[in-house]
C-alpha cells in the first residue's frame, strides 16, 4: 500500500512540473516560429520577382542595426536563407544603367560625404570621377565645400548636372600674404576649415533628437573608393575603421584588431603611437555622435603632421569604441591616390 501511495505522490508532484515546463517552452518558441514563417513567406514572394533583382542580406542583430548589402546573388533555396533565424533575405537590384542616382530608400541610413575641394586644373576631372562613383551609392548626400571666397560656377554647374543629392558650401582658408604667390597659411592643414564648416552645417541642420540615421565620412577628391566601402560604413554605431591603401609610405595602413574584434593598435610605420594613426579616408562617424558632441572639431593650428585625424577623433571616441570593418580590417576597400600634377 505505501508503495502505491508513494508512486501516486511522485506522479502528482512530477506531472504539474512537466506540464509547466512544456508550456513555458512553447511560449518561447511561438514567436520564433512566426518569424520563420514570415521569412519563408517573404522569400517565396521574392522569387516571383524577375532576375534583375540582387540579394541584400539583412542581419537581424539584437540592436536592430542593418547589415551589409551584397550585390549580385543567385536565387537560392528559401530554407537555406530562413534556416538561421538571424537572416532575412531581400532581393533588390537596381538597374544601374538606367536609374541614377539610385532611388532613395526610407530604411537605409544616409551617408553624408564631406569633400573639401579647391580650384586647380584637375579639379573638374576629380570631381567628375567622384560623382561617377557616388552615383552608384543609395542614400548619399554629398557636402562639397570649396576653398574659395565665392561658390564657383564650375562646381555649381557640375553638381547640378550630376543629379546627386548635394549641399554646396564654401569657406576660404586665410591666405598668408607675406609669402609670395597664392599660398595659403601653411600652418593650417589643407581642407581643415572646409571640413569644420561642413561639421557645423550638419550640426545646424540636424537636430540631435531627430531619428534621422546618418553616417559622416570625409572623402577627399583625389582618392578611389570601392562601392563595398559605403555598405561597410553604413552600419557604423559610433566610429568605424578599416585599412587604407597607399598611405604612410606603405602598401596599406590598417588598424590592429585582436581576436575579440577590438582595435588595440595601428599597423603603420609613420608614428604608430598617435592616438589615432589613421588616414582621413579610413574612418566614418555616426551622425548622432557628431551631434551629441557639438564641440568636436578638427584642430586648426598647432597640429603636427599626421595628427589631424586624432584631433577630432580624440574628442569623440576611445580606442575601445572603434568598430573594425572590412572583414576585421583584412580587406582593402579604400585607396588613396595622388594625382600627378599636370602630366
Amino acid at each position, binding site marked *: 500500500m505505501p508503495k502505491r501511495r508513494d508512486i501516486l505522490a511522485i506522479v502528482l508532484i512530477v506531472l504539474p512540473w512537466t506540464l509547466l515546463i512544456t508550456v513555458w517552452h512553447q511560449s518561447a518558441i511561438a514567436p520564433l516560429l512566426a518569424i520563420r514563417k514570415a521569412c519563408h513567406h517573404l522569400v517565396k514572394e521574392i522569387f516571383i520577382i524577375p532576375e534583375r533583382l540582387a540579394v541584400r542580406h539583412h542581419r537581424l542583430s539584437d540592436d536592430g542595426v542593418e547589415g551589409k548589402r551584397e550585390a549580385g546573388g543567385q536565387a537560392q533555396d528559401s530554407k537555406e536563407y530562413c534556416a538561421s533565424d538571424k537572416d532575412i533575405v531581400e532581393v533588390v537590384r537596381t538597374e544601374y544603367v538606367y536609374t541614377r542616382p539610385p532611388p532613395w530608400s526610407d530604411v537605409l541610413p544616409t551617408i553624408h560625404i564631406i569633400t573639401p575641394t579647391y580650384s586647380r586644373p584637375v579639379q573638374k576631372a576629380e570631381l567628375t570621377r567622384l560623382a561617377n562613383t557616388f552615383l552608384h551609392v543609395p542614400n548619399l548626400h554629398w557636402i562639397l565645400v570649396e576653398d574659395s571666397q565665392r561658390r564657383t560656377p564650375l562646381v555649381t554647374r557640375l553638381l547640378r548636372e550630376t543629379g546627386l543629392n548635394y549641399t554646396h558650401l564654401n569657406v576660404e582658408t586665410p591666405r598668408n600674404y607675406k609669402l609670395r604667390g597664392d599660398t595659403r597659411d601653411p600652418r593650417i592643414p589643407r581642407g581643415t576649415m572646409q571640413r569644420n564648416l561642413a561639421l557645423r552645417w550638419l550640426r545646424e541642420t540636424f537636430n540631435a533628437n531627430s531619428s534621422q540615421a546618418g553616417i559622416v565620412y570625409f572623402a577627399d577628391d583625389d582618392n578611389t573608393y570601392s562601392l563595398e566601402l559605403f555598405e561597410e560604413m553604413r552600419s557604423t554605431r559610433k566610429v568605424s575603421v578599416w585599412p587604407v591603401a597607399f598611405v604612410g609610405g606603405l602598401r596599406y595602413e590598417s588598424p590592429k584588431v585582436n581576436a575579440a574584434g577590438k582595435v588595440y593598435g595601428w599597423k603603420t610605420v609613420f608614428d604608430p603611437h598617435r592616438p589615432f594613426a589613421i588616414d582621413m579616408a579610413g574612418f566614418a562617424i555616426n551622425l548622432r555622435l557628431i551631434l551629441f558632441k557639438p564641440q568636436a572639431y578638427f584642430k586648426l593650428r598647432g597640429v603636427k603632421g599626421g595628427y589631424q585625424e586624432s584631433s577630432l577623433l580624440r574628442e569623440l571616441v576611445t580606442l575601445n569604441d572603434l568598430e573594425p570593418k572590412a572583414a576585421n580590417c583584412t580587406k582593402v576597400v579604400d585607396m588613396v591616390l*595622388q594625382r600627378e600634377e599636370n602630366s
Partner: protein
Amino acid sequence: MATRMKLKLKTVFVLYFMVSLLGLVYALMQLGQRCDCTEHDLPKDRTISRLRGELHRLQEQIRKSEATKQPQKQADKPSLPTIFVITPTYARLVQKAELTRLSQTFLHVPQLHWIVVEDSPHKTPLVTDLLVKSGLTYTHLHMPTAKDRKLQEGDPSWLKPRGVEQRNEGLRWLREDRRAQPGGDNQQGVVYFADDDNTYSLQIFEEMRSTQRVSVWPVGLVGGMKYERPVVEGGKVVRFHTGWRPSRPFPMDMAGFAVSLKLVVANPEAYFDGEAPMGFLESSFLQGLVTMDELEPKADNCSKVLVWHTRTEKPKMKREEALQAQGLGSDPAVEV
C-alpha cells in the same frame, strides 16, 4: 512522533501539489494572453514589416518602369550602337584602384562592352576577379609586350610607346574572334581606346555613339596644356590646337577620338605602329582610315572638354621597401 511526521509529510505534499497546480494555472493563463514580447523579438518584427513594405514599393516601381520601358526597350535594343572600349592595362600598385574607378564610370553607360587587355603572359586573378565583380559586359584578353619594347625601371614614361601590342590585340579580337561569334556580324558599334588612368565624363560616351567614321573632341590636361582640341570651322575640322608638334597628321591623344566598328573591320591592315616616333602613335593608326576633312567633330563643335588625360603619381613606398628589407613587409595576401 511517527504520526506527526507523517502528517507533516502529508501537508508538505499537499502544499507542494497546490503550489504546482497554481503555477500551472498561471502559465496556462499567460499562454492565452498576448505575448508581452521581449526586446529580442520586437526589432525583428519591425524589420520584417519594414522589409515587406520596401519589397512592395520596389515591386511597384519595377512594374511602373517596366510599363514605360517596354515599348522603348524593343525599339532601343537593336538600334543603340555598342561602344567597345579597349583598355590596355599592366600590373602595378595602383592598377586595381584605376580599374575600379574606370568600372564605376562605365557602369553608367548603356550598351558598353569593355575589352581589357593585360600586358602579361597570362590573365591575372586580380583583373579576372575585378571584371567578374564589376557587373559589366566585358572581354578579358592578354598580350605581353616584348622585352625590348618595355619600359624599364627608371625610364621616363615617354621613352617607349605603351599599350601598342595590347590595343592591337583588342583590334584583332574585334575583327576576328568577335565576328566568329553568333551575332558578331552586327557592325553597329564604336571603338574607343580608353587608358586606365584617364577621367571620362558620362557625356563623352553619348557623343561618340553617333560616330559614322571617326569622331574627335577636345581632351583636357594633355600635351602640357589645359586642353588640346581640333579647331572647327563650318562644321569641319580645319586644324588642331595643340602645343606640341602640330605638324603631325593627327596631333591628338588616344582619348580624343573614336572609330566606327564598320571602319575598323573594313580596314584590317590598320594597326598601331610601335615603331612610330614619339607622338605619332595615333597618327599611325588613323592615317589609314580617314582624312582630316572626314573627321566628325563632337562635344559641341569641339568646344567642351569631356575627357581628361589625368595621370596618377606612383605611390611613395619608401617605408614599405624599408620594411621589406627587414623581412617585415605588409601581408602580400591582402590585395591592394
